[in-house]
C-alpha cells in the first residue's frame, strides 16, 4: 500500500573523528537496505554524507553555502547499488556540520515529495556531534533549530538521531558537545524525533531499527475497571521475536535456463490408514482424535466448536495486588503494550492516573483478556505501569501473560542448605564471588549500560543478511564468519577481563573444579538427553545414581574416524589418541593435511585462514608428540610454494605472526632442520613488501 511506503534520507557523518566507527555505520546502513529489499521493496532511500572534502548538493548550487556535504545518492527506490554505495562510504577529511546536513536532507524530501506524498518521511542522522556547527546568519542557533523543527513538523517528517559517544569518540570539547546535545534535544522536544546515544560498536549496530514494522493493534476497546468505569485502550505488541526468515523450498527439477520456471516446491500431504497404506483417506474424511487414557477419542471440529469454551471479547480488571506477589520469571510470553486511545484526552488522563498511582504504591493490576471474538481461551496477566520519561509520550502499561495452575509444574529441588558442607562455599570463596559479581558490572553508574537489549542486534540475522548479500554476488560464497563486533556478544568482553585479572584469578584460585573421573568426557558429549530425570530425584546430581551410570555404560562411545568440518582440531586430537590400531596416527595426519589444503583452496577472501592456521598448529603439535616431523615439514614447504605461486600474502603473514615454524631437530630427532633453519623458514615465508 502506498501509504505504507517510507521515504528515508540517511545523513551520515564521515568526518575524520567518525572514521573509527564507519565500518559499523556501513554495516548497519547496508543491513537496513538489505532488509528493505526483502520486506519493504517499495521504500525509497537517499544517502547524504557530510564531512567530505568535496561538496555536491543542490542547495549549494542554488543558494550557496552547505559545503562539505555530498549527496551520494538521490532518493530512489531501494536497489542493490544502494548497498554497494553504503558498503563503501567515503572517508571524509573535514569536521562536518550536522545541522547543514539536516537542512540538505529536508530539502531533498521537500523537493521530491512536495505536497504529493503524505506518507512516512524520515531522516536518519548518524554523527558523533562533537564539532561546532556554524553560526547562523540571523538569530541564535536555537532559533535556527526551532525554525527547522517547525518546518519538519509541518512537512510530516520524523528524525532519528544516533549520536556516537563515549569510548567511540575521542575526548572532545565538552562545551561544544553540550551545545550540540542541546540543539538535538530541541528536535526531540518539538518534533517527532528520537535521539539515542550509543557508546559501543554493538549498540551502534543495534541502535538503528533496521526493519520497519507497521504496528498493528491486538485489541481496541475498553479496559473495564468495573461495569461503570471503562477506559478506551489500544493494545500493541511491545516485543515480538523477529524470526529467521522462512525460506521457500527450491526445486532444481526445472532447467535453470528456463525463464518461466518458478522453482517452487509444493508440499503435498496424504493421509493413509496405519493398517493399510494403499488407501488414501481424503482430507475431509479425517477427524481429530484426542487421547483419553490409552484410547483415542475422535472429536470432530463441529462437535468441538459447539461445546468448546467461548469467552466474550473484552479486557476486564480482576484486581490490584502488590508487585511483590508477581515473580518476574512467571512472565510467559512476549509483552503487550496498553496505551490509551490516541487523541482521547480523558482516556490518556485515566491511564496516566492509574499508572502513576500504581507506581507510587508499588502495585500491579491483574487482568483477564479476550483480545478478539472467537478466541479460544482467556489470557490472565499482569499490568505494570510504564511512566513516560518523554513529555510528548503519554503514560502507558506493559502487560505480561501469567501461567494458569496447569502450567506450573511443582518440581521439588533440594535446599542448598541441605547440601554437605563441602559443597557450600566457605567465607573466602563467598568473598571472591562477591568481588567477582561486583567487578563484572555491565551497568556501572555514570556509564552507559552495556548489552542493553534495546541496542543489541541479533547476530544470527546479521550474519544471514550478510551472507545473502554475498551470495547474490557470488552464488557459492561461503558462510561469512560472525561479525567481529558481534562476537563480543557471544563471547565475554576481553578488555574487561584483562583489567580485572586479579579478581578473576582469585575466583579461579578459590574454586576448584574436577571432571568427574567416573564419567568419560567423550561419553558425556554424546550422551543423549535422558528423559527420566534420574538425577533429579535426589537433585544433587549424585554419581551413585545407578541408572544414570548404567545408561552411560550402555551408550557406545562413538569413535571419530574422520576429520569433519565442524571441529577439525578436536577430531584430529581424538584420532591421534586412539590406540586401538596403530594406523590411526598415520590416518589422522594424512586427513589433517588434506583438510588444511582444502581449507586453503576453498577459502574466499581468506575466511578459512584462521581455521587453517589452527589446524596447522594442531598438526605440528601432533607430529612432535608422535616424533613424526616429516609430514608436517613437507606440508609447510609445499604451502610456501603454493602461496608464492598464487601470490597469497595474508596467509604466510598469519603463520609468521603466530610463530609457526618448521619442526626442528631439538623437537623431533628425525627432523632435517636445526633450530636456526626452522626459524629462518619463517623469515623466508614472510613475503617481501611489494611496493
Amino acid at each position: 500500500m502506498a501509504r505504507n511506503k517510507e521515504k528515508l534520507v540517511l545523513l551520515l557523518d564521515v568526518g575524520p573523528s567518525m572514521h573509527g566507527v564507519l565500518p559499523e555505520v556501513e554495516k548497519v546502513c547496508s543491513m537496513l537496505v538489505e532488509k528493505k529489499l526483502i520486506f519493504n521493496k517499495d521504500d525509497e532511500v537517499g544517502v547524504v554524507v557530510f564531512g567530505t572534502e568535496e561538496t555536491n548538493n543542490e542547495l549549494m548550487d542554488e543558494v550557496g553555502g552547505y559545503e562539505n556535504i555530498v549527496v551520494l545518492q538521490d532518493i530512489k527506490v531501494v536497489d542493490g547499488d544502494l548497498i554497494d554505495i553504503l558498503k563503501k562510504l567515503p572517508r571524509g577529511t573535514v569536521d562536518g556540520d550536522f545541522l547543514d546536513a539536516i537542512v540538505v536532507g529536508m530539502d531533498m524530501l521537500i523537493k521530491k515529495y512536495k505536497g504529493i506524498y503524505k506518507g512516512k518521511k524520515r531522516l536518519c542522522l548518524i554523527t558523533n556531534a562533537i564539532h561546532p556547527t556554524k553560526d547562523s546568519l540571523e538569530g541564535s542557533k536555537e532559533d535556527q533549530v526551532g525554525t527547522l523543527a517547525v518546518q519538519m513538523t509541518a512537512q510530516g517528517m520524523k528524525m532519528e538521531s544516533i549520536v556516537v559517544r563515549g569510548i567511540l569518540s575521542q575526548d572532545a570539547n565538552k562545551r561544544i558537545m553540550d551545545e550540540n546535545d542541546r540543539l538535538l534535544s530541541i528536535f526531540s522536544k518539538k518534533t517527532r524525533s528520537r535521539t539515542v546515544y550509543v557508546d559501543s560498536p554493538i549498540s551502534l549496530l543495534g541502535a538503528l531499527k533496521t526493519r520497519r514494522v507497521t504496528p498493528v493493534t491486538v485489541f481496541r476497546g475498553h479496559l473495564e475497571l468495573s461495569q461503570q468505569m471503562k477506559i478506551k485502550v489500544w493494545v500493541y505488541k511491545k516485543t515480538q521475536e523477529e524470526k529467521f526468515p522462512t525460506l521457500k523450498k527450491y526445486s532444481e527439477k526445472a532447467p535453470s535456463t528456463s525463464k518461466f520456471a518458478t522453482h517452487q516446491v509444493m508440499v503435498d500431504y496424504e493421509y493413509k490408514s496405519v493398517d493399510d497404506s494403499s488407501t488414501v483417506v481424503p482430507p475431509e474424511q479425517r477427524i481429530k482424535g484426542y487421547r483419553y487414557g490409552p484410547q483415542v477419542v475422535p472429536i470432530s471440529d463441529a462437535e468441538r466448536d459447539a461445546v468448546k469454551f467461548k469467552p466474550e471479547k473484552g479486557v476486564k480488571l480482576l484486581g490490584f495486588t502488590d508487585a511483590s506477589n508477581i515473580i518476574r520469571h512467571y512472565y510467559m510470553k512476549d509483552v503487550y503494550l496498553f496505551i490509551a486511545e490516541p487523541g482521547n484526552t480523558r482516556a490518556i488522563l485515566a491511564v496516566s492516573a492509574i499508572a502513576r498511582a500504581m507506581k507510587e504504591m508499588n502495585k500491579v493490576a491483574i487482568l483477564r483478556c479476550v483480545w478478539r471474538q472467537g478466541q479460544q481461551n482467556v489470557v490472565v496477566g499482569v499490568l505494570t505501569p510504564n511512566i513516560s520519561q518523554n513529555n510528548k509520550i503519554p503514560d502507558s502499561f506493559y502487560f505480561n501473560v501469567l501461567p494458569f495452575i496447569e502450567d506450573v509444574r511443582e518440581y521439588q529441588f533440594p535446599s542448598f542448605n541441605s547440601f554437605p558442607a563441602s559443597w557450600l562455599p566457605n567465607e573466602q570463596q563467598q568473598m571472591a564471588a562477591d568481588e567477582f559479581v561486583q567487578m563484572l558490572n555491565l551497568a556501572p553508574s555514570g556509564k552507559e549500560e552495556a548489552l542493553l537489549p534495546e541496542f543489541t542486534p541479533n547476530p544470527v540475522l546479521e550474519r544471514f543478511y550478510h551472507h545473502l548479500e554475498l551470495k547474490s554476488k557470488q552464488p557459492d560464497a561461503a558462510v561469512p564468519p560472525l561479525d567481529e563486533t558481534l562476537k563480543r556478544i557471544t563471547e565475554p568482553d576481553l578488555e574487561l577481563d584483562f583489567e580485572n585479572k586479579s579478581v578473576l584469578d582469585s575466583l579461579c584460585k578459590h574454586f576448584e573444579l574436577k571432571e568427574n573421573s567416573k564419567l568419560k568426557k567423550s561419553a558425556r558429549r554424546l550422551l543423549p538427553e535422558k528423559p527420566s530425570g534420574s538425577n533429579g530425584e535426589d537433585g544433587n546430581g549424585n554419581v551413585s545414581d545407578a541408572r544414570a551410570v548404567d545408561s552411560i555404560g550402555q551408550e557406545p562411545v562413538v569413535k571419530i574416524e574422520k576429520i569433519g568440518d565442524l571441529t577439525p582440531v578436536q577430531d584430529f586430537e581424538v584420532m591421534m589418541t586412539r590406540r586401538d590400531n596403530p594406523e590411526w596416527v598415520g590416518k589422522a595426519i594424512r586427513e589433517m593435511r588434506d583438510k588444511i589444503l582444502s581449507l586453503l583452496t576453498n577459502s574466499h577472501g581468506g575466511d578459512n585462514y584462521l581455521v587453517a592456521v589452527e589446524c596447522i598448529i594442531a598438526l605440528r603439535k601432533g607430529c612432535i608428540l608422535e616424533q613424526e616431523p616429516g609430514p608436517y615439514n613437507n606440508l609447510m614447504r609445499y604451502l610456501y610454494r603454493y602461496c608464492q605461486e598464487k601470490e597469497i600474502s595474508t596467509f604466510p603473514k598469519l603463520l609468521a605472526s603466530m610463530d609457526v615454524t618448521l619442526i626442528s631437530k631439538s623437537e623431533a630427532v628425525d627432523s632435517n632442520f636445526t633450530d636456526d633453519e626452522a626459524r629462518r623458514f619463517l623469515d623466508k615465508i614472510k613475503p617481501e613488501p611489494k611496493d
Partner: protein
Amino acid sequence: MDLDPEDVFKDEEDDPDNEFFQQSESSKEYVVYLVDASPKMFNTTCPGKDQKDEIHFHVSISCIAESLKTQIICRSYDEVAICFFNTREKKNLQDLNGVFVFNVAEREQLDRPTARLIKEFDCIEESFMREIGSQYGIVPGSRENSLYNALWVAQALLRKGSIKTADKRILLFTNEDDPFGSLQGAAKADMTRTTLQRAKDIQDLGISIELLPLIRLDEEFNVSVLYSDLIGLDSEDLAQFIPSAGQKLEDMKDQLRKRMFTKRIIRRITFHIVKGLSIQLNTYALIRPTVPGAITWLDSVTNRPLKIERSLICEDTGSLIQEPPKRFQPYRNENVKFSMDEISEIKRISTGHLRLLGFKPLCCLKDYHNLRPSTFVYPSDQEVVGSSCIFIALHRSMLRLKRFAVAFYGGSSRPQLVALVARDEITTAGGQMEPPGMHMIYLPYSDDIRDAEEIFPDTEDDAPRADKDQIQKAAALIKRIEMKDFSVFQFANPALQRHYAVLQALALEEDDIPETIDETVPDEEGLARPAVVKAIEEFKLSVYGDNYDEENDHLGKEKVGGASRKRKEIAENAAKDYDWADLADNGQLKDLTVAALKTYLNAHDLPVTGKKEALISRILTHMGK
C-alpha cells in the same frame, strides 16, 4: 494476532508430546480400591449434596469414579484395580471367598484406567446386587475372613512392578469399625491376629494401606478397635485421623484435572563463567503452557489412526522431489539459494553453551524484556565436581547485591542473550513453594522490541498527565479493589478444563458435559459493594468529568466507523453494477473478476476468503441456486 492455543503453546525445547511418552516409570502409582460391599454399606446413609441422604456404598463408588475420571487425564499411566469384598459372588485369581475383582474387557486386573472401565463402573450400582451381591463374610462358626481375603487379593494384584519404580497403595473404603464384632473369644482373637499380620506383611513390602472410613451421623467410627493397628496409626495421629480422612474423601472428588509431569532435565549445559572455569547446570521447565494434548488424526469412517505422508512436488515439472530441497530467498530480482548446511552454519554462532557476560542491577531487567517462558537452572556435580559450590556462591552474591547475570545462551534454535535471576528458596508448611536456583529469562534483541507508544505523540502539545488529585483518587480505587493474597497459582485454565470435560463426556458417552467454572471472571459482587462503587465513581468523575459519554466521546472510533461504513456503501453500490441473478443463471459469474465477485459478498456480509470457485459457489448458495 492469533491466539490459538495450539500455536501459542508450542515450544521447541520441550515438546509436550515427547514428554508425554517419555514419562518415566518412577512416578507411576499402582492403586487398589478395596470397597466394603457388606449389607451395612447399603443400609446406612450420610447426608450428601442437596441435603439428601446418600448410602455409603454409593458415596464410595462415586468417589472412586470421580477419582478415576481425573486420573485418566492427569496421570493416565497410573494403574488401578477395583476390588469389592464381603460379596456373595467371588472372582479373583486366588479364588478366595467374598472377594470380587471388578474388571472390563481388554484390560488386565491392575491396568491403566480406560474409558470402558469408567463407564461400566459408573453404572455398577444398578447391576451390583444381581451380579456381585452383598453378603457379610465374617460370621460366627465359619472360618472365612473376608477382610483378610481382600487384603490378600489386593497384595497379589500389586505384585506387578518394582516398588522402586512405582508407588503402591491400597485404599480401603468401609463403614465397619469392628469387622470381627460378631465373633467371640479365641476365634475373634485369632482372626484379628492373622488379619493384622497380613496387613503388616503388606506394609513390609512397601505397599501403603489407607483407610477411608464412611461415617454415620449417629455413630462414631472407632478407629482404635482394629484399624489403628491395621494401618499403623500412632496414638498422636488418632485424634486427627477422622477429620483428615473426611477431608481426603472430599479431595478425591474435587481434584483439578491437571496433567502431571515428571521432573525431567531438558538439557545439561555447561556454564562458562570465566576462562578456565566452567560448571555444569541442568535446566528444567517449571512453567510451560499446558496444551489439550496431542492430536491424532483418525479416519472418520473406521476411527483408525492415520499416518501422514508428506511429499514434495516440483511446481514446474510436477515430478516428485526425493532429496531434501535447497531453500531460497528472492533478493535483488533473483533467487538466492541456500543449502540446509549453510543455514545451520549461519545459525551456529556459538558453542551451544551458556557464557557469562556480566552482571547488572535487578532494576535493569525491564518488564518488557521477555519473550518466552523462563527456564529453571540448577547446578549438578555429576560431571564436574565443584559446580554446586560456585553456583551457590554466585547465587548468594547475586541475591545479596541484587544483581542478575547476563549470559549468552548459544542454543541451536535461537542463540540469544538471557538474564539469570537468582531466587531464594521459599518454603511453607505445605512444602517448597519456590525452589532455590536461577531462572533463565530470554531477552529480546533490538529488532524484537517495538516502540508502538511512540507513534502517536501530539506534536503540538505535551501529552496529558494526571494531576495529584487524580492520582490520589486512583490510589483510593486501587486500595478498594485489592486482591490481598494473589498468587499465580490461583486460576485454572477455563478452556483446558472445558476441553477435558468435553473429552470425558464424549469418551464415556455421557449425555451432559460436566460443568466447568471459569474462575477468571471478575468478582462482580465484590465490585458492586458500595464502597468500591463510590471509589470508582469518584475516580471517574475526577478524570472524565461530568457528562462523559464513553461510547460517543471519541473521534477516532467514529472515524473508523465512518470509514468502514463508507467502504460498505461503496461495496453496495458496486454490487449494484451487475445483474447478479442474470449472471448466475447464464453461468457468467466465472467471467467476473475476483474483485467484482467480492463486491457481492461484501454487500451481503458473506466471507470473502477462498479461491474463485469458492466465491462463486458461495454466491450461488446465497442466491439459493
